């Protein structure tokens, strides 16, 4: 593991720098266009945001090389895992940016601050996912949180948006305070903030023997903060309310970005700080606490609760929120197995999840633009008005279910095979049962869309897609349909991402 100083780190940091500069540029463009008309002004701020994100995406691809190092004196990691997630975050932001353009919910508000916040969250998600220092983790996590609190409450005249934001900030502040307390105890126990030094300190037998309870408390406290971001049980309370109240494009973003970054922190913290490579693709825990069991229990509870609670939902956004909790459980399965395959499976799942979940939310946005409702029952008769849209939604939902020809199956296959390979057959069975339960509520939406008739007697007028949304739907749906053909690419990405900082 190479430790680079500030100046030599900068060359690996181009996407982040591009994002920071573009957020300042957007702020500036917003200010100088104060006297323009609304549509002009929106153009003036959307274009620099898009350019910034695309340029950052380009550099993120260009920078995904073979080097692996601890940048800025071991503050953030540069490795395969981080490089893949970096691309993932920027890509999801581009999608979300394009979602906002014609969204009916955000039509009446000024977009300037929203785009600045979007760029901030994007860049700080990258920092969060790559932090290998407790202070960096905390700071990046809080930057993500604070910016997304404002994004959730962006519709300031809307009661739901405001309430969601208040709930989000209170739960967020509590969990971050709890995590901070845990971090302070960990700092005291090991005398360091650097995750790799913490691992070294915890390998010391003397400390291990005497610090069992302390380490246990620390892990529980820190899991509160990470679990909040991942929305895993028991820190998932906020998730349905916030997802329902937030503007839908923001919800779509929250369901991908911070969640993935939360899992990245989980991997960095537990694989980097609390376990060490033990030959082959295996990791072994350091310290005297069996945190693997904790993670497994959390994973099982999370997916079961998510799936069961989703069964009774009538609001699409709420249903997708519970579905995203369930998916967090599946991703957690990959994290809990403590092998390289587990990390591969997580990343593969997250990549696929990006396409299927954002796709489902895009359909929700389009339908809401048209019918102005998020209730499942109002989706009745969509099939007659927009057959293509319904088919596309079908693909996304089948993918979320994990039905074979679609990409979602591939994601689940990765996770379950990693779990079985680690010798945890029962864990895979639990996952399988959960997938079966999950199928119910996804099918329910489909049934409403396809079968249930529109009660209004007037002839159904066809739903017209904005060209930009049609293009986005196409981009999102294709990877889902040809899922199995993408196996080779996904495999390469997954293997590349397994290159965590000190295990190449």
């Amino acid at each position, binding site marked *: 593991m190479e430790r680079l100083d500030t100046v030599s780190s900068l060359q690996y940091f181009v996407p982040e720098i591009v994002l920071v500069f573009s957020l300042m540029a957007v702020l500036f463009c917003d200010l100088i266009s104060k006297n323009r008309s609304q549509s002009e002004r929106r153009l003036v701020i959307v274009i620099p945001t898009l350019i910034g994100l695309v340029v950052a995406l380009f550099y993120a691809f260009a920078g995904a090389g073979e080097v692996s190092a601890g940048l800025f004196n071991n503050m953030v990691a540069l490795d395969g895992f981080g490089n893949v997630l970096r691309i993932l975050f920027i890509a999801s932001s581009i999608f979300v940016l394009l979602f906002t353009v014609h969204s009916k919910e955000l039509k009446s508000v000024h977009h300037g601050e929203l785009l600045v916040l979007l760029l901030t969250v994007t860049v700080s998600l990258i920092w969060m996912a790559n932090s290998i220092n*407790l*202070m960096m983790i*905390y*700071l990046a996590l*809080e930057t993500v*949180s*604070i910016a997304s*609190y*404002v994004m959730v*409450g962006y519709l*300031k*005249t809307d*009661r*739901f948006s*405001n*309430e*969601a*934001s*208040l*709930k989000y*900030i*209170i739960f967020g*502040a*509590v969990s*971050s*305070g*709890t995590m*901070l*307390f845990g*971090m*302070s*105890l960990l*700092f*005291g126990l090991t*005398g*360091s*903030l650097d995750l790799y030094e913490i691992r070294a300190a915890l390998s010391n037998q003397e400390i291990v023997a005497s610090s069992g309870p302390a380490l246990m408390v620390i892990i529980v406290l820190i899991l509160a903060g990470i679990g909040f971001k991942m929305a895993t049980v028991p820190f998932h309370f906020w998730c*349905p*309310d916030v997802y*329902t*109240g937030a503007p839908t494009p923001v919800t779509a973003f929250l369901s991908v970005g911070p969640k993935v970054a939360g899992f990245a922190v989980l991997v960095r913290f537990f694989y980097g700080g609390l376990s060490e490579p033990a030959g082959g693709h295996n990791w072994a825990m350091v310290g005297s606490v069996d945190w693997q069991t904790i993670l497994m229990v959390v994973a099982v509870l999370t997916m079961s609760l998510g799936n069961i609670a989703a069964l009774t*939902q*009538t*609001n699409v956004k*709420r249903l997708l929120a519970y579905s995203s909790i369930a998916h967090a459980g599946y991703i957690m399965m990959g994290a809990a197995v403590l092998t390289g395959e587990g990390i591969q499976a997580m990343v593969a799942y997250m990549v696929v999840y990006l396409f299927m979940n954002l796709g489902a939310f895009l359909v929700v946005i389009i339908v809401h633009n048209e019918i102005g409702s998020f209730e499942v029952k109002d989706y009745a008769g969509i099939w007659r008005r927009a057959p293509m849209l319904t088919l596309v939604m079908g693909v996304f939902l089948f993918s979320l279910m994990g039905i074979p020809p679609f990409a979602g199956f591939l994601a689940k296959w990765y996770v379950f095979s990693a779990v079985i390979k680690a010798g945890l057959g029962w864990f895979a069975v639990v996952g399988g049962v959960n997938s079966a339960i999950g199928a119910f509520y996804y099918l329910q939406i489909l049934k409403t869309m396809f079968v249930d008739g529109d009660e209004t007697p007037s002839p159904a007028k066809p739903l017209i897609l904005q060209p930009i949304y049609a293009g986005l739907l196409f981009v999102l749906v294709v990877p889902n349909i040809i899922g199995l053909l993408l196996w080779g690419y996904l495999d390469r990405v997954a293997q590349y991402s397994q290159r965590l900082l000190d295990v190449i």
Partner: protein
Amino acid sequence: MIPLEYYLVVASALFSLGLFGLLTKKNAVNVLMSIELMFNAANINLIAFSRFVTGDTEGQVFALFVIVIAACESAVALAIVMSLYRILKGVDLPEASALKG
């Protein structure tokens, strides 16, 4: 000299008090105050450890960042509270429960 454990126990007490306020208070601003108590408890820990365990200023730098973050967080939180107050004319948490299910 006061030993390390004294500071840690006081910090734990402060943390638990914050937790108690958090669980029992209805007013959003009061809940935010309780959260500040938790942040302060963690900061006492950090600084005590940086004095007794590491003997350098690393923990103090962390505490400095925590103070900065706490300031940002309460600014945004109170802005949200104000914004919600304009709609609800009150900031008791059980009132803010239109989102249910």
